[in-house]
């Protein structure tokens, strides 16, 4: 029963305070309130979340896949930008 009244929303969940919200998937809903409820029902059933963000999928501005060559390839050979030459101190949990 897909109709003009159902919109696609993207769902972001944060597993605990201090972490970033991560994309979890999408839901169909009529508006923001039902989208939050549906997102809660679909994506937090196993205790995954302490916070939820949702946004209308159409409001996301995405880069053009056709331009991925010029956008991302130049970073491929610049290994000196990776902090892999440092050792991580014991006790640091989230990097």
């Amino acid at each position: 029963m897909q109709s003009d009244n159902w919109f696609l929303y993207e769902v972001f969940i944060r597993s605990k305070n201090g972490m970033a919200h991560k994309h979890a998937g999408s839901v169909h809903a009529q508006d923001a309130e039902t989208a939050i409820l549906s997102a809660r029902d679909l994506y937090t059933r196993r205790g995954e979340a302490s916070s939820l963000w949702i946004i209308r999928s159409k409001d996301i501005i995405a880069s053009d896949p056709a331009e991925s060559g010029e956008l991302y390839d130049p970073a491929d050979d610049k290994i000196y930008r990776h902090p892999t030459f440092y050792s991580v101190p014991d006790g640091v949990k989230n990097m």
Partner: protein
Amino acid sequence: MNSSPNFIGAMIPAKPETNFVLRCADNAMILGQRLSEMCGHAPELELDLALTNISLDLIGQAGLLYDHVQTLEKLAPNADVLALTRDQNAYLNCLLVAQPNVDFAHIVLRQYLFSTFQKRQYEALLSSSDETLAAIAEKSLKEIAYHIRFAKDWVLRLGDGTEDSHERMADALDCLWRYSGELFEKDSVLAAAIDAGLLTDFTDKYEAWQIEVVALLAEATLTPPDDTHMLKGGYQGHQEDHLGHILTDMQYMQLKYPSLQW
């Protein structure tokens, strides 16, 4: 009468406290079972999961309550046998929870009426002389708050929605309102449980409940029918045939394979 330990049949608890807890357990179990019928049949995948989540919350509450009944009065070898092998008239749920899933309007209105009542009933258990029962109520109240939020939102949305959705909500209200009187009825069992300190008297919240519900319905452009003859008797085991249909499904496995374990 079959008196094997794997079959309870017509037995009803002797103590009013046990009887009351069994009512709470049966309310949660039967509504949970009703909602589980919607698995795979809701109008949208999102709603399918929402309804089955609520169903699982309720069946979880029922599990805790049946276990607790067993500690108050050992009616059966285990909670499964207690939950699943009674005769129709030994189930002590209110009539509302067994009402059929006619359409989505019936489902959300039934949930709204029940959950707003259940909230008041469980709040009355928070200061119970029975600490386990108070703990079960406290845990369940968080789930109930969500059930109310979900159901209320849909009652508003559909009542004050399209012509079709409004008509369906109005039909559901005509059909279900007559079961709301039983929720707050104080019979001798409930009165004895209150006297025993098992819970405070929530029946004096009936008027406040009606005011809250009627206001929400008004916001949803709905009006309860006038002069409704309230149907009662579920709590005393006088069940309608709707329950029989639920039991046919619900009891099948336990009766076919007595003492089965998952």
